[in-house]
């Protein structure tokens, strides 16, 4: 398979870039750098991976964890401050959920549940791909996702399989 072209790279950047940044934000304070480096690595590949999105998520995960560890060694306080200052979602009046509240709710979730929800909802990865990312089984990845989703529903008072009764602001 030939290397990736600029059109395909641009399409992946538009589709997966924000989700990858949100995914990397769980581990490091400068997720954009990690995502950019992942795309550069993808362009350097001699052949396009079978599933470029999953490949990008794996590279971003490894890079973000590595960067997060080195950042923790330097200044943990500055990192947490930067995490708080950077909004996770674009604020829009049309959204029925408040992005900041969702971000705070996501932060309270256990890391594996948060990772599964971000990869599933915004990265649109399958549970099989999420399981490969996390190094676990598909059933475990699905369980993490369901547990995290239940916790978010509880926080936002949303019953199962129902939309919230009122917009949460």
């Amino acid at each position: 398979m030939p290397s990736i072209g600029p059109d395909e790279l641009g399409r992946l950047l538009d589709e997966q870039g924000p989700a990858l940044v949100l995914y990397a934000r769980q581990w490091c304070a400068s997720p954009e750098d990690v995502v950019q480096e992942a795309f550069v690595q993808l362009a350097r590949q001699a052949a396009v991976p079978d599933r470029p999105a999953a490949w990008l998520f794996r590279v971003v995960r490894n890079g973000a964890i590595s960067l997060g560890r080195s950042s923790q060694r330097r200044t943990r306080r500055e990192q947490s401050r930067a995490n708080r200052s950077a909004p996770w979602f674009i604020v829009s009046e049309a959204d029925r959920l408040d992005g900041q509240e969702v971000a705070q709710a996501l932060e309270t979730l256990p890391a594996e549940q948060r990772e599964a929800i971000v990869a599933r909802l915004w990265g649109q990865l399958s549970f099989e791909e999420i399981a490969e990312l996390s190094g676990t089984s598909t059933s475990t990845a699905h369980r993490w996702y369901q547990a995290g989703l239940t916790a978010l529903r509880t926080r936002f008072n949303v019953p199962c399989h129902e939309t919230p009764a009122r917009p949460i602001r």
Partner: protein
Amino acid sequence: MPRDASTPDPLSGFEKQLQSLRPTAALGRDQLMFRAGQASVERGVTPRRWWLLAATNGISALAAGLLVAMTMQPEPRAEEQVVERPAPPAPPAPAIEAPPVRSADAEFGYLALRNRAIQGDWREPLVISSNTGWEKSAATPSYRQLLEQYSQELR
């Protein structure tokens, strides 16, 4: 029972609402595409190829240098060196002729007296001359004469 990964369930309303939130991403698209383009070009020359290229260039330069050094040897240059040679034996000094000795000096001079003393020539007594220091004892009586003269006076 977990769902099949290949056929995921449709998202619920709450999931769709969550999904509708757009994550922030301050990605510099132009910069990213530029770096990706650079990376795709660099991919053509792998580090191993760089290494081979550098090694080939180095060996070629070394061979060319050796060739030039062997073909363009400098002409032998006369070197000046200071060699300490032993000085040749000096020629014998010319004999200095002694100045002519006066007759008195020849007979009664210091050298003549010294030679006589060395040779034990005491046949004649030494007389000190007022001028030369030593004179022949022609006028001076010998011991025997003095003895006979003294014995005659005693008689």
